[in-house]
């Protein structure tokens, strides 16, 4: 799995977001073991201390749990995960709205465009 990291922003913040994303999408299932700091750092090609900082941050939030000698697991609190999913979606939508507004496209226009696009993508399945 590729980690696309932007050198212009603190790396540890980007690592936090990517791991959060993996929990939200179910790549890391609730209650499952998260790979070790070393393995994750190798996969992301980042400094292990930076990865550790990201994991500690997610522990602080409660999204990950530190089982001491048993490594880290994803929380089983599915309500928290659902809430994080909503937060992430909301952030993306707000950013998109802002970009559309800069183009001069209103929220209503955007909603009708979204519906058109969604319908045109469904058509091939209806045949």
């Amino acid at each position, binding site marked *: 799995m590729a980690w696309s990291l932007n*050198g212009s922003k603190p790396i*540890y913040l980007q690592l936090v977001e990517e791991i959060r994303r993996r929990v939200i999408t179910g790549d890391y299932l609730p209650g499952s073991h998260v790979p070790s700091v070393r393995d994750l750092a190798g996969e992301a*090609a980042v*400094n292990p201390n*930076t990865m550790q900082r990201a994991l500690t941050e997610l522990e602080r939030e409660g999204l990950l749990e530190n089982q001491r000698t048993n490594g880290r697991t994803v929380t089983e609190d599915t309500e928290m995960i659902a809430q994080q999913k909503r937060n992430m979606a909301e952030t993306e939508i707000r950013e998109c709205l802002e970009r559309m507004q800069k183009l001069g496209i209103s929220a209503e226009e955007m909603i009708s465009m979204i519906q058109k696009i969604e319908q045109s993508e469904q058509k091939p399945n209806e045949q």
Partner: protein
Amino acid sequence: MEAILQCNNLGKNYGSLHAVDGISFQVAPGRIIGLLGPNGSGKTTLIKMINGLLRPTSGEVLIDGKRPGVETKKIISYLPDCGYLDSDMNFKSSVALFKDFYADFDDKKAYDMLSRLNVDPAARFKTLSKGNKEKVQLILTMSRQSKLYVLDEPIAGVDPATRDYILQTIIANYNPQASVIISTHLIADVEKVLDDVVFLKNGQIVLYNSADEVRSKNGKSVDEVFREVFACSAN
């Protein structure tokens, strides 16, 4: 815990040229530090003083609390910029040499790392490509259980896949009791692996901070900040 490297007003001058101009800093265990600066900024002079190849003209450098000498050379693993391996040797014979010379050398680890590459341990170094020579030198350096690894331009002049391999090896060998100093020009490639960065200019430290701090303060990558700090006018 004691700093692995400590420089106190460290200086090296050649007449009126202050190659290293009274620098003070320390490196804690478990850190990967980038030593960054243009050619002639004092990086190599500093590295040579750390390794006891040059003597300071002022101040001191301490490795694990000791001045450079036999005891510090035991705990420093140095990968110089230029190739230092005899071109008639091969991996087998250099592993034997390292094992004989260094008490902390792990030959099993060296062979294990080599097995993942397409390099024949019996092939003489003069027959290896530049990329493979770099990888072999790195393997020998990282197979020691040292407290300080000093890598001078470990990824220069090699293809991107080889650079990735070298950086992966450095990450995989991370040890919270040891530290790594990487001196390089290829900042964009290396910066994600660095904890902290030191910018050296005219023998002085102009910046010493964590890489993420540099990013958040400037909204730019370490590479971009470097280009600004060391910009030369083309006009």
